C-alpha cells in the first residue's frame, strides 16, 4: 500500500535520510523505531510531502506521493497525526475535529463520525466548545487522533503519540491505535517507546542515523540482542 524506495532527504547540507526503503501493506500496523534524531519524523515528513526528497520514490496505492501537494494527501486517504500533538490551541475542540474533515463534502456522514469520535473519547464531549489549548496533554493527544480519523483515512501516520504522557494515558492511546487497526485501517506508527509499540505492531523497522538498520516481526526484533540493548533498556 505504501512503498518507500531509496529515499534521500536533506535539511540544507545535512542528510537526514539515507536510502530509506520500507513498505506497509494494507491492514498492517507497522512500527518505525529509533532513537531521537534517527530520522523517524523525517520519514513521516517525506511521506506527507511536508519536505521534498532529493532522491528516491514514495508510492501510495500506485500514486507517486512526491508529486502530490501536501493538502491533497487527505484526499488519497492518508492522515498524519503529528509529533507533539500540534492541535490548534486557539480553536475549540469541535473546530479542531471539524478541520480534520475539512475536505469532506458529506456533511451527514461527518456528523456521524463526529459522534463516533466523541463516543470513543468521552472526555472530549464535555470540552467540545473549550479551546484546545486548555486541554491536558493526554486529552490533546486524543483530540489529535480524533482529528486525524475525521478524514476517514485508509492510512494513519502516528508520530510519537506517547511522547510526554503519563503511563496510564499511554496505555489508553495504544489501545486506541490498536482499535483503529482493528477497524481495518492501515497504520504506520513512529515511536521511541519501542517496547509498547512492538506490543501492538505486526512488523517493525529500526532506523539509525537516517538508515534502516533492521526489519522484522516484533518477535524477531525483541529477541535481537542489539535492539534489546539499544531500545529496550535490556
Amino acid at each position, binding site marked *: 500500500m505504501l512503498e518507500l524506495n531509496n529515499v534521500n532527504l536533506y535539511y540544507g547540507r545535512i542528510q537526514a535520510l539515507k536510502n530509506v526503503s520500507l513498505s506497509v501493506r494494507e491492514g498492517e500496523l507497522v512500527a518505525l523505531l529509533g532513537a531521537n534524531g534517527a530520522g523517524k519524523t523525517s520519514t513521516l515528513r517525506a511521506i*506527507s510531502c*511536508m519536505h521534498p526528497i532529493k532522491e528516491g520514490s514514495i508510492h501510495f496505492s500506485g500514486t507517486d506521493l512526491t508529486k502530490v501537494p501536501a*493538502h491533497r494527501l*487527505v484526499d488519497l486517504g492518508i492522515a498524519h497525526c503529528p509529533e507533539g500533538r500540534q492541535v490548534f490551541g486557539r480553536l475549540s475542540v469541535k*473546530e479542531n475535529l471539524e*478541520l480534520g474533515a*475539512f475536505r469532506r463534502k458529506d456533511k451527514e456522514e461527518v456528523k456521524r463520525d463526529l459522534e463516533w469520535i466523541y463516543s470513543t473519547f468521552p472526555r472530549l464531549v464535555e470540552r467540545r466548545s473549550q479551546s484546545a489549548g486548555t486541554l491536558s496533554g493526554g486529552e490533546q493527544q486524543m483530540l489529535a487522533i480524533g482529528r486525524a480519523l475525521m478524514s476517514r483515512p485508509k492510512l494513519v501516520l502516528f508520530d510519537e503519540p506517547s511522547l510526554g504522557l503519563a503511563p496510564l494515558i499511554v496505555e489508553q492511546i495504544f489501545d486506541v491505535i490498536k482499535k483503529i487497526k482493528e477497524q481495518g485501517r492501515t497504520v504506520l506508527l513512529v515511536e521511541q517507546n519501542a517496547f509498547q509499540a512492538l506490543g501492538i505492531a505486526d512488523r517493525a523497522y529500526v532506523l539509525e542515523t537516517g538508515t534502516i538498520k533492521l526489519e522484522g516481526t516484533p518477535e524477531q526484533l525483541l529477541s535481537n540482542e542489539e535492539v534489546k540493548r539499544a531500545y529496550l533498556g535490556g
Partner: protein
Amino acid sequence: MDSTYLLQQIVNGIGLGSIYALVAIGFSITYSILRLINFAHGDILMIGSYCALFIFLSGKVPLVVGLLLAMGFAALIGMLVERIAYRPLRTASEESMLITSIALSILIENLGILTVSAQPRKFVFPEVFAKNHELAGVTFNNMTILTVGVAVLLMILLTFFVKNTRLGTAMRACSENIGVARLMGIDINIVVAIAFAIGSALAAVAGIMLGGQYGRIDPLMGFIPGLKAFVAAVIGGIGSIPGAVLGGYLLGLFEILLVGFLPIEYTGYRDAFVFILLILVLLLRPNGILGSAEGRKV
C-alpha cells in the same frame, strides 16, 4: 480642560482610529499566516483610493457600488502581489520577505508616480458628507459617521467570517500552525490569497475614508498610515484581529489626545511618544495587549 473638549478629542480619535484599525487588520492577518511584515500594505491603501477616485467620484455609479468595486480591485491587486512576489518566498526567511515588501512598496509608489503623476488629486465626497452635526457641544460630520460606521460594519462581518465559516476556521488554523493545517487538507495558497484579498480590501476602504477626510490623495499617501497601522497591530498583538482593532483605536486616540493635551512646546514630539509607547508595550507585554505567545518550534 472641560469635558466637551475631551469628548471632542475622543470623537476625533475614534475617527482616526477606525482607519488605523482597518489597515492594521490586513497587517495582522497576513502576518499571522506568513510571518510577513508587509510594508507594501500601505500602498495597497493608495491603490484603493485611486481606484475609488476613478470609479465613484466620477459620479457615474452609486457610492456603495463604487466602494465595493474599489475593494474588489484592491483585493485583486493584493492577491496578484502575493502570487507574484510572496508565494515564491514561502520557505524563505522573514528578512527576505521583509525586503521584498520594501521593494514592492518602492515599486508601487513609483509606478503610481509614473501613471497618475505625483500631483495630489482632489478627493472629495459628495456635499452631504461634509454636513456637520453637533451633539452635546461635540461637532462631527457625516464623513466621520461614515468612516466609523463602515469600519465597524466591516469588522463585524470579518469577525463573523473568521469565526463561523469553513474558510475562516481554516484561516485561523493556518495562523496557528501552517504545517498541520496543510495536513488537514487545507490549501494554503487559497487561504493566503484570501487573507491578502481581505486585508487589501479593508486597506482600500481605509484609503477611501482617509482621502475623504483629508480631501486629497497622492501616490505616497500610504506609507505613514501603513507604518502607523503596523504599530497599531503590534500594540494590539500582531496576529490577532481583535488586537489589531483595539490597537488601531488606541493609537488613534493616543495621537489625538497627545496633540490635544500636551503643552504646545511638546506637541512636536508626538511621533516620538507614539513610538516610545510602542516600545513600552513591547517590553511590558512582548506579544501585544491581546496577542498570545507565539509557539516556538524547538
